């Protein structure tokens, strides 16, 4: 049974970061997610793994796709799901994150899914509550389920992750998606490259086990996977790059640059996309683009994570 396999190899209480996950743990989650993906294509998608459990989506930062993906994942597994968007409420009343955590903890949820704009915030919160906590993105630190869904998408399309050359392109400095993916892909044996202008590369990024390129044409040479990152609007106008136009010229994915990658290279993007900034609009809809599969695998991976964590909950 796949479930018991996950039970045997993923025995954590929280999912906070990718940098300590073993290949065995990741593969166990991906196997479980494969089953969930199959389940999600059935007419009857409802299961009862989380029946009676309460899942709270606690989002300190606005999110459409991650929050709805977790909500759907929780509901398909039978949990009661509550969404809390805290960005505008108690935080503005001066309540500290820890006080908010204590308040929620008193409501006795089983699983908390948390997104916060500050790195380390989710870990801090996890120390103060009794339930399982899933990091749904903390600042520029980690976004574990995104990296897992990306790995799942790659594994399903290519049959493996090990040995593939994966290029992560764009705003590496501010990206939790990049950091999580670097961890997971390295652990699974891929060769990871990062491609960005120097202003968007964090110091010593090479120490995380990646090859660094500031020339996208050179960086994409022979790539199996091209993973584009979103460039936030406030960083486009002169602070980190001079203009949208110049950024697209040197770091946007167009057909000319795409031609440097392998003919069967996959194109990925965690969304939401800026068409014409980091990716040409027609490439986003290209036959090799797996951007929509990523969204589908997002729900499956989140179901797998919820199921694996639920097995660690007391009284199970």
């Amino acid at each position, binding site marked *: 049974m796949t479930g018991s396999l996950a039970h045997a190899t993923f025995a954590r209480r929280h999912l906070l970061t990718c*940098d300590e996950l073993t290949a065995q743990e990741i593969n166990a989650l991906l196997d479980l997610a494969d089953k969930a993906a199959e389940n999600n294509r059935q007419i009857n998608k409802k299961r009862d793994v989380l029946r009676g459990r309460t899942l709270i989506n606690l989002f300190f930062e606005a999110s459409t796709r991650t929050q709805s993906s977790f909500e759907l994942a929780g509901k398909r597994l039978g949990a009661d799901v509550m969404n809390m968007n805290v960005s505008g409420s108690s935080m503005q009343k001066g309540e500290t994150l820890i006080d908010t955590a204590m308040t929620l903890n008193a409501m006795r949820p089983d699983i908390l899914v948390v997104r916060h704009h500050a*790195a*380390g915030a989710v870990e801090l919160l996890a120390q103060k509550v009794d339930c399982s906590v899933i990091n749904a993105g903390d600042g520029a630190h980690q976004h574990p389920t995104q990296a897992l869904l990306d790995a799942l998408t790659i594994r399903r399309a290519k049959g493996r992750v090990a040995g593939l050359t994966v290029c992560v392109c764009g705003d590496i400095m501010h990206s*939790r998606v990049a950091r999580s993916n670097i961890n997971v892909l390295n652990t699974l044996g891929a060769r990871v490259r990062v491609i960005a202008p120097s202003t968007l590369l*964090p110091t010593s990024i090479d120490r995380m086990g990646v090859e660094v390129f500031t020339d996208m044409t050179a960086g994409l040479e022979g790539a199996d996977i091209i993973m584009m990152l979103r460039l936030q609007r406030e960083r486009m106008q002169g602070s980190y790059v001079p203009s949208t136009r110049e950024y697209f010229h040197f770091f946007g994915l167009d057909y000319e640059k795409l031609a440097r990658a392998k003919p069967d290279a996959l194109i990925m993007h965690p969304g939401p996309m800026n068409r014409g900034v980091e990716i040409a609009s027609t490439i986003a809809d290209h036959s090799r683009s797996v951007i929509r599969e990523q969204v589908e695998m997002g729900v499956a991976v989140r179901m797998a994570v919820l199921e694996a964590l639920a097995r660690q909950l007391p009284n199970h």
Partner: protein
Amino acid sequence: MRRNGNAGDGATAFLNARIIDPASGRDQPGGLLVKHGVIADVGDHLRRNAPENTKVIDCKGHVLCPGLVDMQVFTGEPGLEHRETLKTASHAAAAGGVTTIVVMPDTEPVIDQVALVDFIQRRARDNAIVNVHVMAAMTRGLKGQEMTEIGLLQRAGAVAFTNGKSSIANTRVMRNVLLYAKDFGALIVHHTEDPYLTEGAVMNAGEVATRLGLPGVNKAAETIVLERDVRLVEMTGGRYHAAQLSCADSLAVIRSARARKLPVTCGVSINHLTLNENDIGPYRTFFRLKPPLRSEEDRVAMVRGLAGGEIDVVVSSHDPQDADTKRHPFAEAADGAIGLETLLAAALRLYHNGEIGLMPLLRAMTSNPAQLLGLSSGRIAKGAPADLILVDLGQPWVVDKAEIRARSKNSPFDESKMQGRVLLTMVAGKAVYQYAGAERG
């Protein structure tokens, strides 16, 4: 400001001590006699015998040395008394063997006027149990724009001038402050961190920051300001002290300034001598400091700089912060750590590890800062104030939050094992702290 403790009038004799005076380099067995709040006599002839009618303290061979002079202490008085008052800071100081504290002007309101210097001195006289001196703001409101009344503030008792936790970005203002202060022989103490490069940064740039996803600042932000300041000192001749340096490159700048005989000195915080960026671990906010903790190589360079005499002063940079400012995600928490009670013990770690000798270590916490600030304390000599500490170098203990006297408990050394502690602290001849376990030992 001298305290006039009545209890100090009775004579006290310290017998059987290991007397260390960093000012003269003396490290000898002997005894010491305190009368009317000052050191009346010192020497080998007092080792075993005390004059009549004196209170006798048998030092049992432990170290008797000048009380520490800490020239960078933040309190919350006035304005943020829930974090620390002059009284609580002074009790923390006494327990740590610090007999003189220099309080920083980063308060609410900022200490930038004569009346506020006077306020601090009065409050300290009434409530504090150690000597308290004021370092006044050198620009109004610490805004880095308009110069304060440096002459009048000095006359009121300010021992030095600073822009607190921020660097003056405007080079012209910095030049004028140095130039004007020179006429009064006033010491300018400057925090060196480029405000534009440090904007938004919460720790040292490097692998650790990148992995944690935290915005980091390159250590060059410190050296850039220091290099500019040294040029300005060369231009103006003003007395300049870099408040707390944190990296090897800055020491190279200091060396070059010294080689040119410029009036430049520098300090380092105890945190940057004993901790590094890896201590931040899983986002521990008590290790969020300004300047940030650097790499281990930089820490080692700072210790070497201290041993070699390039660094003149060690400060605690005692900076009380409470849950309101520290119980946050790392990037949103305040900078600062308390340090008065652990200053000496943490410094002794370096001595016990063989990283530095006792004499240069103590000198940087006693005679050097006293001399820079023009204080008569920080030394053992006839006629000097009887600001003394008795230290058991070997005594092991564990830092316990519950026993910390400072009002805020943000110590990076909480639960740390220490070796060496203060048995007795005397200010102007009056015992202001006595270790409860001293008699047992």
